[in-house]
């Protein structure tokens, strides 16, 4: 099917098969179709259907509540064409990604628990999927409809191995599927890379402020490891705030401690606990780490007071945490929006 997409600053046209989502087809064709989550939660890819017919896809997509009925708006990340279509968006087209994302098949190489509810998942794509630190991939597992967006937790420039840290959601379809039996060797669908909250050493010469909550540590780890490998911390520092409920919710602490140990006085780690502070023994197991109590954005705001100038901020985690941290950076920190990087998943 032929898709024509009109934006305020121009128009693009591309082909989209009936079993493909319009957003993904547009991105794969190298166009800067606006999006953030790619999974039906944020509504950044909403478009007005001017002509043609689509299958709107996931009926319960959270972003549906932000759509107008008249004129009819659709989510390009969910909709598949039933005919040639003409669409329009209010805003401008985005800058196309340096490397257009694409579809691939992947094989689950291993599934390893990192704590009581976080799994480390390693997937090998059937062809390399080069990505930037901070990006995510859409993953489609058998028996569960639709894509999930998972951030890569390591940086492998060539994209031969994709490592994810996935938080198990009680009652979640993919969580249930992953835990039902050993999924090693199972084939999954992939699309990516996606996401604009990236770190590039030559472009991003600045002190980093990294704020992660719960499952949001993955892209932060990839960014820190990418920066370290590029020698970024010879000149700049990173303040890393990782918020969880209790000590038992921490994961990948060894990788964080190793990073900090390799860049002494240039990477500062603060772990923040919203429900219970760790015991003396637990604290002793995390040498060099500072501890905070409460919400991660509040602890971050106090610790960073007076040090927001010229920082580059990365945030990932539960949407309320990202929203609260974003507001604090804008209002208290006066951080320019162009220096606040996150991908909205709500």
């Amino acid at each position, binding site marked *: 099917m032929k898709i024509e997409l009109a934006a305020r600053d121009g128009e693009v046209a591309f082909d989209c098969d009936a079993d493909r989502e319009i957003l993904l087809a547009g991105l794969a064709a190298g166009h800067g179709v606006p999006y953030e989550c790619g999974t039906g939660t944020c509504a950044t890819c909403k478009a007005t259907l001017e002509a043609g017919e689509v299958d709107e896809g996931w009926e319960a997509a959270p972003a549906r509540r932000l759509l107008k009925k008249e004129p009819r708006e659709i989510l390009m990340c969910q909709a598949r064409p039933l005919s040639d279509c003409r669409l329009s968006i*209010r805003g*401008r087209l985005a800058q196309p990604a340096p490397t257009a994302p694409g579809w691939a098949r992947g094989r689950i190489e291993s599934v390893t628990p990192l704590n009581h509810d976080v799994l480390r998942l390693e997937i090998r794509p059937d062809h390399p999927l080069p990505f930037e630190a901070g990006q995510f991939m859409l993953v489609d597992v058998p028996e569960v409809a639709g894509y999930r967006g998972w951030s890569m937790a390591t940086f492998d420039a060539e994209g031969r191995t994709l490592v994810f840290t996935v938080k198990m959601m009680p009652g979640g379809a993919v969580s249930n599927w992953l835990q039902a039996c050993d999924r090693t060797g199972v084939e999954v669908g992939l699309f990516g890379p996606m996401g604009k909250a990236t770190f590039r050493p030559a472009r991003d010469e600045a002190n980093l402020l990294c704020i992660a909550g719960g499952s949001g540590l993955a892209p932060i780890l990839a960014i820190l490891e990418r920066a370290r490998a590029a020698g970024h911390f010879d000149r700049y520092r990173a303040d890393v705030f990782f918020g969880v409920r209790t000590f038992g919710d921490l994961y990948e602490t060894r990788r964080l401690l190793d990073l900090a140990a390799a860049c002494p006085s240039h990477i500062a780690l603060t772990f923040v606990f919203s429900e219970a502070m760790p015991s003396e023994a637990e604290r002793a197991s995390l040498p060099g780490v500072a501890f905070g109590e409460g919400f991660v954005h509040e602890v971050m705001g106090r610790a960073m007071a007076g040090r927001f100038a010229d920082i580059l901020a990365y945030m990932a985690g539960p949407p309320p945490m990202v929203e609260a941290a974003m*507001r604090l950076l804008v*209002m208290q920190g*006066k951080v320019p*929006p162009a220096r606040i990087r996150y991908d909205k998943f709500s």
Partner: protein
Amino acid sequence: MSDWKRVCSLDEVAECELKEFDVAGIKVVAVRSGDDLFVYPLRCPHMDEPLSTGMCDGATVTCSFHLWQWNMKTGESTGEAEIDLLLYPTKKEGGALFADMAKELTYD
């Protein structure tokens, strides 16, 4: 021809609060800086999201969806925003804020 309509009483909007009002069927958002009150169309010119969830620090209005920013007094873009914010003419009378709603302001 002006068409002055009452938006709210002067003390209904707290400092730096972005508060939504329905003025004769037209949705607007009002914000205060000291004694000055400003009234914009409710929807962000970017993607039609409500500005009432946005932020104001007494100088700048920021939409919380994609962080477009404007000078709160003039509506001029101060950063990424590609479209300036429109302001309804306002006046204060008898302890209330009025806006000229003769024409609904839109970005289309």
